[in-house]
């Protein structure tokens, strides 16, 4: 009998402790592509978020009201597949009872999960960088959305500012060579009016996903006497496009709004101008910004590997800073469950981390970024821009 009472008391204590543990953990879901050709846009987000979660938990968690919470990151790999992402989102919301979801960065993935996510409006917050999120912000039943990346167009849009910069370089005709997929088409819709407004002719060619040999479109585009090539949008194609364009002497001037500097640097001897939008040029920022230096040191210690300078700029979306922002917002809101209150706090704050991040009234991020210009002779000039 005594044994039975002891085991019952033990079981009850265990149940209570499990319940307490469960109550004191805030789960963050993350739906990003971590593998595959489009993983460039999800891999770093995962790396940065995981590092922030580890730092916060090792520091003892965070207090909201009288309770101390720890974070748990659940991050399945979407492999850029909308169907897989939809199943993963359902599991996160219905089984894991997650209230905060980071990602997606990819437009095709967002388009695939959007109807289901909208059905769950009010139950969770989605902090994603996908370009397609922009069009949904402020629409009825889309209160769950916060976009974590700078928007291309508009007075303070980075694309607008970059095209203005391009105009100052004397651009008159530009050739846009993008992938024929969801984002490629959105990019054409965004940039066609921006170029038109700037008075720069824009020739557009879309190529099939998986293309490796760009000889035909490059020859075709260069025959039109274009001065700048505007290729996109991942390094997986940029390496080939930049190499083939420069090797054949077809283009020497490049303009990028997505992708890294690496393809340009690899072919720098044959390039006159390589202008790129980069959320942060970590190689330079490491020398000047203590927070960036600390982040790089923490990354190396945590992952025990070299810092990925080429991928790190993509930590500007749903990544390291955003975990800290979310924690701050929960503290200020005094709740970890009421997503409306947490969103209100997120939209009212300016976070000074790796980036200076704030959100506009629609819930879209505005943060400082770099414009890099590599000129002939390999000199790189960095212009820091703080959008209004």
């Amino acid at each position, binding site marked *: 009998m005594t044994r039975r009472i002891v085991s019952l008391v033990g079981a009850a204590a265990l149940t209570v402790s499990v319940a307490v543990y469960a109550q004191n953990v805030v789960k963050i879901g993350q739906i990003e592509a971590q593998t595959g*050709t489009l993983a460039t846009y999800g891999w770093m987000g995962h790396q940065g978020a995981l590092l922030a979660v580890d730092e916060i938990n090792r520091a003892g968690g965070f207090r909201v009201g009288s309770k101390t919470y720890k974070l748990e990151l659940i991050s399945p790999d979407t492999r850029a597949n909308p169907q897989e992402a939809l199943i993963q989102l359902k599991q996160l919301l219905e089984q894991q009872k997650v209230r905060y979801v980071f990602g997606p960065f990819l437009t095709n993935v967002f388009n695939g999960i959007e109807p289901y996510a909208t059905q769950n409006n009010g139950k969770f917050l989605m902090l994603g960088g996908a370009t397609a999120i922009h069009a949904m912000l402020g629409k009825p039943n889309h209160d769950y959305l916060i976009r974590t990346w700078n928007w291309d167009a508009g007075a303070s849009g980075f694309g607008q500012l970059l095209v203005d910069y391009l105009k100052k370089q004397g651009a008159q005709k530009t050739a846009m060579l993008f992938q024929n997929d969801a984002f490629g088409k959105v990019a054409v819709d965004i940039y066609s009016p921006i170029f038109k407004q700037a008075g720069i002719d824009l020739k557009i060619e*879309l190529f*099939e996903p998986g293309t490796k*040999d760009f000889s*035909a*479109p490059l020859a075709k585009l260069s025959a039109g006497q274009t001065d700048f090539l505007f290729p996109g949008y991942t390094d*997986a194609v940029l390496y080939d496009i930049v190499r083939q364009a420069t*090797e054949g002497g077809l283009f020497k001037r490049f303009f990028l709004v997505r992708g890294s500097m690496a393809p340009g640097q690899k072919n720098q001897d044959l390039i006159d101008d390589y202008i790129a939008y980069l959320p942060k040029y970590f190689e330079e920022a490491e020398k000047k910004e203590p927070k960036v230096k600390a982040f790089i040191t923490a990354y190396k210690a945590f992952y025990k590997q070299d810092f990925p300078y080429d991928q790190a700029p993509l930590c500007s979306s749903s990544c390291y800073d955003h975990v800290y922002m979310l924690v701050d917002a929960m503290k200020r809101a005094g709740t970890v469950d009421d997503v409306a209150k947490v969103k209100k706090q997120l939209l009212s704050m300016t976070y000074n981390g790796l980036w200076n991040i704030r959100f506009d009234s629609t819930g879209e991020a505005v943060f400082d970024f770099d414009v890099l210009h590599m000129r002939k002779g390999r000199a790189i000039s960095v212009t820091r821009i703080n959008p209004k």
Partner: protein
Amino acid sequence: MWQLIVGQLLNGAIVGTLYGIVALGVTLTFGITGIVNFALGVFMMLGAYAAWYFADTVGLPYPLAVLTAVVVTSFAGLVADQALFRFTRNNLVNGLLVSIGMIAVMESSALLIWTSTPKEMHHVLPGVFAFFGLVVPKMKLVVFGLLLAVIFATYAALTKTWSGRAAYAYAQNAEAAALMGVPTSRLQTGVVAYSTGLAGLAGALYASLYSLEPTLGSLFILKAVEAAILAGIGSVAGALLGGIILGVTEGVGSIYLPLAFRDAYGLVFLVVILLFKPSGLFAGRR
């Protein structure tokens, strides 16, 4: 305009030889083992990464890196044959299932080892040849020459040597060939290893022209199978010509038609050919 068209004819032929050499592997494997080995694409990927690794990480001279990559892929093909493919001889469905499984395993392994970040080999032979307004990268011409040499050497070996004739005999009538003393098991294993070696060579040469990612073989194996069907399965010279026709169709088609549907041009061409010649353009010829 003529420079653009002639340039794309030439470029299409060069890219087409890459399709052609993998198609040669497809046609040889099918003729001798009775399966369509879709895993040849991942052997090409393995060859590409191996060449990149030996050239850029280990520091071997590029020609030596290519040879090492071919040896590595041939050995991997031999292991795959002995562990898996030999149980699927002349069973199209089982062979297909095993090759699809191998694609999943090898692509995932490549992702784990080399990640999805593209790898680009140092520029082995930079610069271009310019003549009559045409501009062709030097390395592309070298790759073209090498692939043509290997395909013609394979053709010569198949028609002029005892082993080659034995392979043809086996493809035509397996039982009769066995009764005539052809060592069928060794022949099959040898052909699988040779085919994977060809795919490895294609990958190693591809690495000198394009950036690498773990899924690079998927596109090429589809094109190679298209080329083999276009030519007619079993024709060695046809595999090369099928690849070149496909490459040229894509290249020239991209000038006049939207690039976004480039892969479709080759497929439309294939459908048209098969409507009039269901066994392929060069079926029945060696």
